[in-house]
């Protein structure tokens, strides 16, 4: 073979007529390749006209077939469907953001590989909310105005989503909630361009209060983070407990509390159930410190899985043994209802998740399994709606919303959580819940499945005429 360096050495300036006098002068000319002294490989062979035609035809055919196989959406296809996405990738709740982003990208890649939506490729535009409502709203605007997205999904941050409500309405761009738990977003504050296929504080309370009231105790203390989410959970659960004749005590602590002893020592001595709601290190801190001061011996501990999503139970530690959780989708594969196993296994495989809810190849990372499914299902809901309505572009968004809000999804590869029912009036989705207990081996074992019908409270708004 003739190497690049040798070929370069073989290049010399061939003489050609001078531009000045039309004669040949030494040192003037154009670049040609000198024949190598020793012919090797392909250069040894003279190329005939037949060879040239044959090679060119084969090359053209190869390129044509290759591009047809690998890029099914390019030539002559309609423009891509553009989906904007933002999640919490920095500052706070990054364990959520990581999984929400990963699952959405996996879902979109899978959908594109299966032919896209109505023959159109999906393009995903991904941004960081930085947990900052103002910043996130500017990203929403950027996605709509610069990236020309047709819809936006993601974020578990209620403040972020609330900040984007006016923009969603202004541009008539649907906002699909990633995991915001503020009940009012599909209640009294609902807007027509907001869709939520996952649980929230009220549905969690409706799912979780009765079983715990009957089995754990009737005197509850809420030790929750002192912001909207913590108050919302205390209000929703507490209202139901008191209405059933129980007794409640509310203690609120700053969201980033490190030392819980001042708060825990205020827990009423006759408390039977200690309900806690914090995120991040505070969630771990409150569970650990409850054990440190021996409070766990005289009461039952109950919480929502949001508190330790994306955190391995080994990290939460043995102090969590005996605690009860409300899950919105089981973390461990063997705790998922049997009929959902085929879908669940395929979903986990696609997203790189093992049977214990850990990332394959990186077992230190645990899934945000009760939240991330929303980002798997939304692309499918969008696909169904687009194919049903013949949606072409953002101008048809109202049609798409009307289609999505009346969907009744059956369990399947794109809906591994089981049946999902959307409600037309408030754009809220309903699916099953699970009560789990932390076993001595630190596994979250499901002890009760709460069907979605039990959490379908009456809608507080009617958006059917507003889209």
């Amino acid at each position, binding site marked *: 073979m003739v190497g690049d360096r040798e070929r370069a050495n073989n290049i010399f300036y061939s003489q050609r007529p001078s531009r000045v006098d039309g004669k040949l002068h030494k040192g003037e000319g154009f670049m040609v390749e000198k024949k190598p002294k020793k012919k090797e490989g392909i250069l040894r062979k003279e190329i005939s006209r037949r060879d040239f035609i044959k090679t060119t035809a084969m090359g053209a055919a190869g390129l044509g077939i290759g591009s047809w196989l690998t890029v099914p959406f390019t030539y002559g296809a309609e423009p891509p469907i553009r989906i904007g996405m933002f999640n919490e990738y920095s500052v706070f709740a*990054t*364990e959520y953001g990581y999984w929400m982003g990963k699952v959405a990208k996996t879902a979109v890649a899978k959908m594109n590989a299966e032919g896209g939506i109505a023959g159109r490729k999906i393009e995903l535009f991904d941004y960081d909310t930085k947990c900052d409502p103002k910043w996130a709203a500017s990203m929403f605007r950027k996605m709509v105005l610069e990236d020309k997205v047709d819809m936006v999904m993601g974020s578990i941050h209620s403040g972020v989503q609330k900040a984007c409500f006016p923009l969603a309405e202004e541009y008539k761009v649907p906002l699909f909630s990633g995991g915001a738990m503020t009940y009012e977003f599909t209640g009294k504050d609902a807007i027509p361009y907001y869709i939520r296929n996952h649980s929230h504080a009220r549905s969690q309370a409706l799912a979780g209060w009765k079983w715990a009231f009957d089995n754990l105790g009737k005197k509850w203390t809420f030790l929750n983070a002192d912001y909207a989410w913590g108050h919302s959970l205390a209000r929703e659960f507490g209202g139901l407990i008191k209405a059933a004749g129980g007794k409640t005590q509310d203690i609120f*602590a700053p969201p980033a509390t490190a030392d819980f002893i*001042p708060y825990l020592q*205020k827990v009423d001595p006759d408390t039977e159930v200690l309900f806690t709601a914090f995120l991040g*290190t505070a969630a*771990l*801190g409150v569970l650990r410190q409850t054990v440190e001061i021996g409070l766990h011996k005289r009461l039952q501990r109950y919480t929502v899985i949001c508190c330790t999503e994306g955190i391995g139970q080994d990290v939460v*530690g043995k102090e969590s043994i005996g605690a009860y959780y409300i899950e919105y989708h089981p973390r461990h594969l063997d705790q998922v209802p049997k009929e959902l196993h085929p879908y669940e296994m395929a979903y986990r495989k696609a997203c790189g998740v093992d049977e214990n809810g850990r990332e394959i190849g990186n077992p230190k990372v645990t899934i945000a399994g009760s939240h991330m499914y929303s980002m798997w299902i939304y692309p499918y809901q969008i696909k169904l709606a687009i194919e049903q309505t013949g949606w072409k572009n953002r101008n048809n968004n109202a049609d798409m919303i009307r289609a999505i809000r009346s969907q009744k999804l059956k369990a399947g590869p794109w809906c591994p959580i089981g049946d999902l029912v959307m409600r037309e009036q408030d754009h809220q989705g309903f699916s099953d819940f699970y009560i789990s207990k932390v076993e001595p081996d630190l596994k979250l074992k499901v002890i009760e499945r709460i069907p979605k019908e039990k959490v379908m409270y009456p809608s507080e708004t009617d958006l059917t005429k507003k889209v």
Partner: protein
Amino acid sequence: MTSNIAIAMMNGIVWGLIMALIALGLNLIFGLLHVINMAHGALYMLGAVVAWYLIEFTGSFWIALIIAPLFVGLIGVAIERGLIRTIEDKPIITIICTFGIMLVIQELVLMIFGGAPRRIDSPITQRFPIFELQYPVMRIMIAFISVVLMSGLWIFLKKTKYGLWMRAVVQDREMAAGLGIPVTKVYMWTFAVGSALAAFSGVLAAPIVSVEFMMGREVLIMAFIIVIVGGMGNLAGSVVAAVLISLIQGVGSIFVSPSMAMVFSLAILIIVLLVRPQGLFGE
């Protein structure tokens, strides 16, 4: 009620001593270099993160307690030599610079360590009864280690050559340099000791609070409050202020909500700033 007050007071003193250790490093750096180190909370977090890796590797909390602060101290040396030294006479620039360092450390830890919290097991799991509750022995041990470290720092400052140099540089930098004290070296080691103290606090607090890339942010705010109340540059003032604020918060939370107790302690900060801008114990 009596039992609640007793628990609150004990916990207030213990937590106050942990906070004092954090504030001490911050105040040491300010007292000598006049640098408001916004990266102090990040160095506290870095200490805990390094300790987590060391414990994963060695299985020993006590080894991590020694090595992690040394490692963070060396990072402190690099920060002082590479960045702070070039801008040490520009207070506003140093604030912006150390804020940038804080962001860089946080984001690097997020990239490498991940965003989810991790736990460090308490090496001492015993508890002792106190009225109707129990109290972890580890917290008492942490308070004891804090006292030992603070005493060590006091001896270092008062009884050693380096300590004498440091005090001399604080009093008169030019005169100290004229007398042959290596001022730049003193600055460098002061920043290293301050950083190591932050890391010590991070490792000690980790079994209570867990480890996370953002864990330094809240601590930084409280450390600044302590430094301001105690007097900027006044190390003894920081210790007293830390214990005092924790006690007020702890005991106050029995009578009002703990959040209101926090508000109350912040109100004290405002009053101190108005009445004694130099801090309760002077600069």
